[in-house]
């Protein structure tokens, strides 16, 4: 398999997170962890639009769960603008 190298700049925080998660998840190297992350992300983007939206909705829910409704969030934004 022909391989192509791609480099990426990370912030210090991201580099530290990569270091920690590479150890915790037992990846053989940071490169392997990055490859897995990229493949997972590309797989998400390759899903058909409806499945991609459903998956993205789940990711949103898992990363930052919240009980606030969409209309409450929009209303909150409007009220703040009004108070400025």
């Amino acid at each position: 398999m022909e391989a192509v190298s791609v480099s990426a700049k990370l912030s210090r925080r991201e580099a530290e997170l990569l270091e920690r998660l590479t150890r915790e998840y037992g990846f053989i190297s940071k490169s392997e962890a990055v490859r897995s992350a990229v493949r997972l992300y590309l797989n998400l983007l390759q899903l058909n639009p409806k499945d991609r939206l459903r998956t993205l909705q789940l990711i949103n829910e898992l990363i930052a769960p919240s009980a606030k409704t969409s209309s409450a969030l929009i209303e909150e934004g409007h009220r703040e603008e009004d108070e400025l």
Partner: protein
Amino acid sequence: MRLYLEPTVLVKLFKREPDSGKMIDLVAAIDSGRDWFGCTSRWSLLEVARALKKDGKPKELIELNLKELRRHKIYFIDVTRSILSDCQDLLASHGIYDSDALHAATFASTTRTKQLDAMLSDDVHFKRLGGIVKVLTLNQVSVETADSQPR
């Protein structure tokens, strides 16, 4: 059906709410193009971003959500001088928020050229604009699945 998608329903795409699955079906129907058309103001992208930020979503996830929103066949309408002028008239005559006036003015302007049927929204403030904007909620729109024809 030809709909203006107001931000309260667009945010549902990225949250799990009782009717958010229906919103995904609707966007899939718009993508399929058969008898369904969806549009919104470019301003909606900012409102969606702000709502997601308020919801505690990290920057990268907000960016990914906005990229996703732009990938569908939703038509984004520019905020023109003419729309802003209509918006000023609405603000002067109704007790509504700036953003609501912008959506109402964009809806009215787009209806003239693209014959919209209604604005899809969960925002109760639009009821005050009954004469200008016909508002529907997701429960009033019948989308079975993206693969089927609308009733």
